[in-house]
């Protein structure tokens, strides 16, 4: 009898092996809880901001080498005040092993308003990362004092003024970027739409059942560009820079130099409107070129619900590509940078149409999660409508990672990647970083009225990796805008330093490269925003390498 059982077990194992049941997916995550619950003050009236909250940042706030986590949080929807501790923004300090301690109170980061997005950047080049919080009718700039605390400098910085024409704006996200290459990070603020709790129209999903309104029922608003004066203050240059004239319903901003002319450009997704691509002409001037470059709309020419985005090189040709996400039946569009100032919609050709059509996404992040040398795409998923709308669409969804198979082909991994280990949810923002120092990128995800999720990367391959923590001297200290070329095993990869990725979120860790089987990089070339080009040879893998910008 025992022999028979043993034989059956062996047969079962053999079958499992043959059928691939035990073959782990190349990218895999394990769930870890963290004591944060996003509370956007959901009400039966379904006010729009309630469904849009959830930015998160991964950054090293105390320079101990371990990435920490900052969550934005909501507020009472009628007063836009944090009337209860449940609405507190939260800062969690990492002990280096992926264990987190709440240090919000000590840091002074609980916040006061309805906060939506977060952007990390060292705007005063003092070596400590500062925090911009984008909120509904009020933004905040927190200066990192370097002693574990932050100071609210919004007023001193000149970032507390309502718009003269539109009044208080609803900012969903921000991006730090040095638009004029003066070595100071400027601030691009993404504004969604004109909203007022008192005048918002009630929208019905079905008779008697209110739900979040379609964006068409709100007026568009302008995005903003604040130039860093270098003295702790900022100047709104939106109009003179050519930004303000292009109204939109912004959901995300990505920064990259798409035409490699040395000036950082800005791509903005809009909700049910065409996207904007602000081409930086230098001298603080931008031209909006989304239509000319082929990124205004997906190839089908329809307005879709553009959500978060990432703007990085996916095909290792040195030109930043664009990935953004939308709702079900709208696909997650991919625009391939053709290198001649234009883009091609490769959503269908890449397989992404088929894979993403049933999905609703919020926050896409481009990064190499299996360290094979090809950047993948992690997407937080969940629908914008309320749970009451579930008879019409799938509101709560699991997250999905799209593995880059090379050649701009992708494979969707959800349960296979361990991402069904938690119940589906209305996921929102996401940020990445190596939380436990094992060389694999982990993901922090927020979800509406639900606990945040830590997805610890336990992908099986023992591939090599390297991360670069840049320190600008002539360029901005974070090195935002620096382009890094890495050659290993005869293959080149590219990335740029940019902390803006996903929806309302910021991933401000060192710039990560997967090296596959290569134990070193043959060549690393860094083109700093200052124009300085720095080369490093034979760089050992599996380390976080600090690189300081040379003087010339």
């Amino acid at each position, binding site marked *: 009898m025992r022999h028979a059982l043993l034989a059956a077990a062996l047969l079962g194992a053999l079958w499992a092996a043959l059928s691939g049941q035990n073959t782990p997916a190349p990218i895999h995550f394990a769930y870890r809880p963290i004591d944060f619950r996003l509370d956007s003050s959901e009400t039966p009236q379904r006010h729009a901001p309630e469904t849009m909250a959830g930015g998160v940042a991964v950054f090293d706030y105390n320079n101990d080498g371990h990435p920490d986590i900052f969550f934005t949080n909501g507020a009472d929807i009628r007063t836009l005040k944090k009337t209860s501790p449940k609405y507190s923004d939260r800062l969690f300090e990492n002990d280096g092993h992926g264990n987190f301690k709440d240090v919000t109170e000590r840091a002074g980061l609980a916040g006061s308003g309805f906060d939506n997005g977060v952007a990390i950047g060292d705007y005063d080049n003092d070596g400590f990362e500062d925090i911009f919080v984008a909120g509904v009718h009020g933004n905040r700039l927190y200066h990192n004092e370097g002693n574990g605390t932050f100071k609210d400098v919004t007023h001193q910085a000149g970032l507390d003024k309502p718009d003269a024409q539109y009044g208080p704006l609803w900012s969903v996200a921000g991006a730090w970027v040095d638009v004029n290459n003066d070595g100071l990070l400027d601030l691009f603020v993404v504004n969604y739409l004109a909203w007022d709790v008192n005048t918002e129209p009630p929208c019905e999903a079905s008779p008697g059942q209110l739900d979040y309104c379609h964006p068409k029922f709100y007026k568009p608003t302008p995005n903003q560009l604040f130039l860093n004066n270098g003295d702790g203050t900022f100047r709104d240059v939106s109009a003179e820079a050519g930004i303000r004239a292009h109204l939109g319903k912004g959901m995300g901003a990505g920064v990259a130099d798409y035409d490699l002319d040395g000036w950082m450009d800005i791509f903005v997704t809009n909700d049910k409107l*065409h996207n904007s691509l602000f081409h930086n002409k230098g001298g603080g001037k931008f031209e909006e070129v989304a239509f000319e470059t082929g990124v205004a709309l997906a190839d089908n020419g329809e307005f879709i619900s553009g959500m978060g985005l990432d703007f990085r090189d996916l095909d290792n040709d040195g030109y930043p590509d664009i990935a953004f996400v939308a709702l079900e039946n709208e696909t997650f569009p991919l625009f391939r940078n053709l290198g001649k100032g234009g883009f091609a919609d490769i959503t269908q050709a890449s397989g992404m149409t088929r894979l993403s059509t049933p999905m609703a996404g919020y926050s896409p992040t481009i990064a190499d999660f299996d360290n094979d040398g090809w950047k993948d795409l992690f997407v937080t998923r969940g629908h914008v409508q309320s749970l009451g709308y579930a008879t019409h669409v799938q509101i709560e969804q699991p997250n999905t990672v799209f593995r880059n198979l090379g050649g701009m082909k992708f494979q969707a991994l959800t349960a296979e990647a361990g991402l069904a280990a938690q119940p589906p949810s209305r996921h929102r923002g996401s940020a990445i970083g190596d939380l436990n120092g094992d060389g694999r990128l982990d993901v922090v995800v927020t979800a509406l009225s639900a606990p945040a999720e830590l997805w610890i990367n336990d992908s099986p391959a023992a591939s090599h990796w390297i991360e670069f923590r840049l320190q600008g001297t002539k360029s901005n200290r974070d090195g935002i805008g620096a382009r890094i070329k890495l050659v290993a095993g005869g293959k080149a990869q590219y990335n740029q330093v940019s902390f803006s990725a996903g929806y309302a979120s910021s991933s401000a860790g060192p710039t990560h490269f997967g090296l596959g089987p290569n134990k070193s990089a043959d060549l690393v070339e860094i083109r700093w925003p200052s124009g300085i080009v720095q080369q490093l040879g034979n760089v050992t893998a599996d380390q976080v390498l600090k690189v300081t910008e040379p003087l010339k």
Partner: protein
Amino acid sequence: MTLRAPRTWRSLSGCRLGTRAETRPLVVLLLAAASLCAATDPKAAAEADQALALAHEGKYELAIPHYRAAIALDPKLPGIDLNLGLAYFKLNRLSQAATAFERAAKADPSSFQARVLLGMAYYGSRKFAPAAANLKLASAQQPDNTELRFKLAQSYLWSKQYPQAIAEFRFLLARNPDSAPVHMLLGEVLDAANQPEQATAEFEAAAKAGPREPEVHWGLGYVYWKQKRYDDARREFQAELANQPQHAQALAYLGDSEMHADQSQAADHLKQALKLDPKLRLAHLDLGIVLAASGDNAAAESHFREAIRLDPKRPDAHYRLGRLLRSLGRTEDAEAEFAKVKELGEEQPQPPLLTVKP
């Protein structure tokens, strides 16, 4: 886009549910002569008699003035509004029929005939919400009248009362699980209610139950197409074309599905579709894309412009035309098209499910 074509799958009188019992008439339409005999005003009775005689001969136009004269003399003449309504109904003057039936139903709220006819008058005039309300009251009196409940289900569907429509179609399917039309209509409801997986299952059941049924493969192909399952959609459109070779929409959507695989094949089908129906906007748009890709820019421009003419409120053709013109160096013309797209961004049509509460 919603499934529009299936609405014409069955005319009012042509519904086939598969069993003899189910094909019985909604209601036996008898002229209410006996009731009219109860009239007390002799002049009114005489007018009514004359009207009935004319109606029996099918001379409804001539009967109507006599009915109206009888009503003027005795508005409470039993059955008179029902018969006047019937005359209007026969003449397809449905709004006037509904008004007469409303009076009849008000006079006798328990009248099955009045309720059914009122419901059908609204149904025929495409006022599906009041049609559903009245047919529901009628079906409460005859819950086993499947023809009546089929009309009720359709009325729910087209007045966007999806949960009620789903319940009615499921009731009908319980009676006749192999009815391809009911599976199709249930698929249409589920599709309209944004439940693509269940909608697909119903269309697949319809195709299995009645593979030769007109429109069944078209409907299934369309739900596949909406889900961007282009390979599956292509197969179903081809199957529909095997049943109905002159199905212009199937040809157009076959062409569109082929756009995602082999554009050279798409062109033939798109051209065939346009030969059958030159007003197919999607086919013009797609053909423009194919022709632009092959360098036939003048023809491409012409098709884009025709697509715009057919529906100037959609951004896609403007966008495509703008890109074509820009590639041809006609920057100003291109800018004008791009400006139109931006303008349309603020004028988008109402989404199907979310509307501002009145």
